[in-house]
């Protein structure tokens, strides 16, 4: 009990400190400043996202172009998490052999009725299409590679939990994963070779609010979408196939 009240006291102190520090930046205050003569980074981004990059969604412009290097790192974090997950929960040799023959360890399965199974079958392509739509239109509307990728992963999740025998083809997954990640890096290298700066956008950026606009931004967001979708599906697949064992 003493420990618990000490913890509560500590937390209250921390809470007051954080709250007071953030009150120095009042809620709703305009800290962006003049957009025409940008002093802050946000104003600069808001100015150049429509003017130079011709990208309607300025969050996308920031994520993919202005701070694209962060996003490359973030995709890497996801990739490393999938790798780490696989290394932590890797299957033992006999299971590996069984998996190669197609006898995967039994997946966790929730009981599902005919209605659910039929519904899942109908929904699955729709969810995939929604995901693809979201990342193809990432530069025009809210959403993009991460959101689209996550939506695709939810589609696969639906199939995983309703169908016992639904399995993704691991070879296809690995190919998509590797190639989309590589394509992201290579687009960066393309900028380095032709314009002298890693991840730099092409000079041609089209017209604002066209589907094909923003130069390389939609292309990169498609790569990110595929990468994130396969990566998340991979994570779910690994987790769902871990089978509780009695002894180890």
């Amino acid at each position, binding site marked *: 009990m003493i420990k618990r009240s000490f913890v509560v006291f500590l937390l209250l102190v921390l809470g007051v400190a954080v709250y007071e520090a953030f009150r120095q930046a009042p809620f709703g205050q305009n800290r962006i400043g003049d957009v025409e003569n940008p002093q802050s980074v946000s104003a600069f981004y808001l100015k150049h996202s429509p003017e130079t990059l011709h990208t309607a*969604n300025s*969050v*996308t412009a920031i994520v993919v172009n202005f701070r694209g290097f962060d996003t490359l790192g973030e995709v890497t974090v996801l990739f490393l998490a999938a790798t780490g997950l696989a290394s932590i929960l890797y299957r033992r040799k006999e299971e590996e052999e069984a998996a190669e023959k197609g006898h995967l360890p039994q997946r*966790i399965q929730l009981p599902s009725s005919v209605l659910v199974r039929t519904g899942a079958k109908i929904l699955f392509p729709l969810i995939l299409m929604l995901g693809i739509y*979201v990342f193809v239109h990432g530069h025009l509307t*809210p*959403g*993009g590679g*991460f*959101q689209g990728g*996550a*939506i695709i*992963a*939810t589609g696969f*999740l639906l199939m995983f*939990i309703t169908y016992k025998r639904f399995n993704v083809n691991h070879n296809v997954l690995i190919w998509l994963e590797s190639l989309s990640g590589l394509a992201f890096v290579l687009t960066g290298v393309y900028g380095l070779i032709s314009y002298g700066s890693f991840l730099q956008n092409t000079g041609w950026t089209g017209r604002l609010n066209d589907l094909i606009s923003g130069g390389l931004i939609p292309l990169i967001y498609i790569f990110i979408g595929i990468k994130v979708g396969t990566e*998340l599906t991979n*994570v*779910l697949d690994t*987790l*769902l196939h*871990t089978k*509780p064992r*009695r002894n180890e």
Partner: protein
Amino acid sequence: MILLILLVVLAVVLLAAAVYATIQKDLLYAVLATGVVSLALSVFFYLLQAPDVAITEAAIGIALTTIIFIITIRNTTRDEDKYSEDMINRFKTEKE
């Protein structure tokens, strides 16, 4: 006025779900409560003019995070006070 009330209600739902997630002993319900936190958060983001973040939180926070928690609970124990259970009776919650 209605929208202000909506924000207040959202904040209350958010915090109530968070507290529930912390004190609930049945971990399955606690995990579902974190899903509710994500849901309320996602609406919050939308009202704060961040639709991109709202969609991300909806897809990742509500769906994927909740499901990986549920998978973990199925692989461990469901009752917070029973740290280890017989593997076969994992989903029965009767006291020892």
